[in-house]
């Protein structure tokens, strides 16, 4: 087996190492980003405005030239044209030519991606149907609403039957039904083995579909991992009960609990305190309804990452 074949067989669809970008005027957008996206997974790219997410995506798609970058996309070096033909891309704030119809636009961008005519003719109606745009296929794009343009953009990103799809804010401009459709589409792609890299501000959306996420802060990876890895840390325990605790409430407070009606909350991960509290509650003759550990939400991880110092080496 050749070295090239071995490289192509790596599990990473995207393997970016030490990606740096300094724009003119010495603005450091990326300061050494390491990101790995496994084949067939949905990967979320998170970060506040100006964190460098879009620059990173543009470097992957050869729109922006990196100051320094190593790594591969689909097993080949960044910018490899053969592999670019296997990537679907929806840029953020894209502008499509208004003089084209939806069908013409799909054909145009697919031809630029070297998709053969027969495949273009087969894929266009199928994808227009998939994004509920069949009725508008022969209407000029300048008559489309923002949501329709976004749906068309998603369809164009899939015209080449990509192995990797890079979507920058794909639900921008979509209504709740449209967002749900996009989520379903992403899960369909995943089920077919397509890798999806998703750049979005909407944490709840990412939480619903992503296998792994990376949080970029100030041009560096602050957190990276599976959602369960990132959210496994328990924040607090909540004990729900029924009945009056009376004077035993002081004992609960002494254990560090916050009593609020029928709920007592214990911050941190000290299970011993929770068990002691249960003893106190039973002693008071109340019924324990449930004990719930509350884990970090993606939003809390995001906020925490923004305030903490990013890890310059990223998380591999």
């Amino acid at each position, binding site marked *: 087996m050749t070295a090239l074949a071995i490289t192509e067989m790596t599990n990473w669809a995207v393997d970016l190492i030490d990606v740096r970008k300094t724009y003119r005027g010495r603005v450091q957008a990326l300061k050494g980003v390491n990101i790995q996206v496994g084949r067939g997974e949905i990967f979320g790219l998170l970060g506040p405005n100006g964190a460098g997410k879009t620059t990173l995506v543009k470097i992957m798609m050869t*729109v922006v030239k990196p100051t320094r970058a190593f790594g591969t996309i689909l097993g080949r070096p960044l910018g490899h044209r053969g592999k670019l*033909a296997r*990537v679907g891309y929806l*840029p953020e*704030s894209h502008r499509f030519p208004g003089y084209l119809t939806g069908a013409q636009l799909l054909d145009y961008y697919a031809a*630029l991606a070297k998709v053969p005519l027969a495949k273009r003719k087969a894929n266009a109606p199928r994808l227009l149907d998939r994004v509920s745009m069949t009725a508008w296929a022969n209407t000029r794009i300048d008559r489309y609403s923002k949501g329709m343009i976004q749906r068309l953009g998603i369809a164009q990103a899939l015209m080449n039957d990509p192995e990797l799809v890079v979507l920058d804010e794909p639900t921008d401009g979509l209504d709740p039904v449209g967002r749900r459709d996009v989520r379903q589409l992403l899960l369909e792609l995943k089920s077919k083995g397509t890798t999806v890299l998703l750049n979005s501000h909407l944490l709840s959306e990412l939480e619903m579909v992503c296998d792994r996420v990376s949080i970029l802060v100030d041009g560096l990876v602050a957190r990276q991992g599976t959602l369960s890895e990132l959210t496994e840390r328990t924040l607090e325990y909540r004990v729900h009960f029924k009945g009056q605790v009376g004077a035993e409430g002081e004992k609960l407070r002494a254990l560090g609990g916050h009593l609020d009606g029928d709920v007592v909350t214990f911050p941190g991960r000290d299970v011993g305190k929770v068990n002691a509290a249960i003893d106190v509650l039973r002693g008071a003759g109340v019924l324990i309804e449930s004990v719930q550990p509350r884990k970090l939400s993606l939003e809390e991880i995001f906020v925490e990452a923004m305030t903490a110092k990013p890890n310059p080496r990223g998380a591999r």
Partner: protein
Amino acid sequence: MQFWAIIIDSFRESKDRKIFWVMLLLSSVVAAAMFCVSFQPGRVDIMFGMWTIETSAFTSADGLRADRLAAVIIDGIMDHVLGFVGIVLSVIATANFIPNFVERGTVDLVLSKPIPRWRLLLYRYLGAMSFLGVQTAFFVVLTFLVAGVRWNVWLPGYLLSIPLIILLFSFLYCISALVGLITRSTITAILLTLLGWVIIAGVQSLDDMFVLYPDWQKSEAAYHTARTARWIVPKTSDMTRLAKRWGHATNFLFLVEPETTKDRELVQRAEKQEAQRAAMNPVVIIGSSLLFEVCVVLIAMFKFSRTDY
């Protein structure tokens, strides 16, 4: 596949502009006006005889003088209608092709496709020229047919004006493309292209004056500077001369009737100048102009390849 996708897209963009259809309409009006003119021995009838001009300039004992009619069509109508008005309108209409192309949000998607940037820009550049290509072909073929059908004057050489006019436009459009790429401003691209055209025309006219007034050649430094400058810039006026030569058109000066000796001398010198220019090697005219264009386009490609969008 990628080439044709961009060419077809550029043509669709051209068609979307009102000016595209206005220019086709203007060409039709010119052709219709030509159709209303007929040549009779000793006179020219306009609007099917509604007006008459007494002249024997276009007829001889053998019938119509094709070389003189060619001069009217090529030197008069084509040079001024298509070669000036058409090109100015085309410069205006195509000036935003490149700025639109490199607009943020539009350029991202095309740059992500598996095609080298230099080729992307080159295809787009050629695509923009489809605008004038269609206009020129329409105008020349229409007027060619009118001359043939109405006057029975067939000028196959006139059809060579199509590539010549497209080349002429391309010499100016390369300036527009480079300026549009750097500044991303349509207005700046139009203004600097027209300014460039004025400078190019000025350089050629200045060199022509040295031929027209041989006394000027005594100032050797000025003469050699003008000669060198002419070699560097695209030879737009020589392109029109080539069109006349290939269209077998006579010198348009036949319409001038000098009244004084001084006028006659001037006309003779102008004829000499025209003869000298007409004798220039077409390969040199087109080749040196193309060299200028290639240099400008290469600069644009280099800039496009190095820019982050």
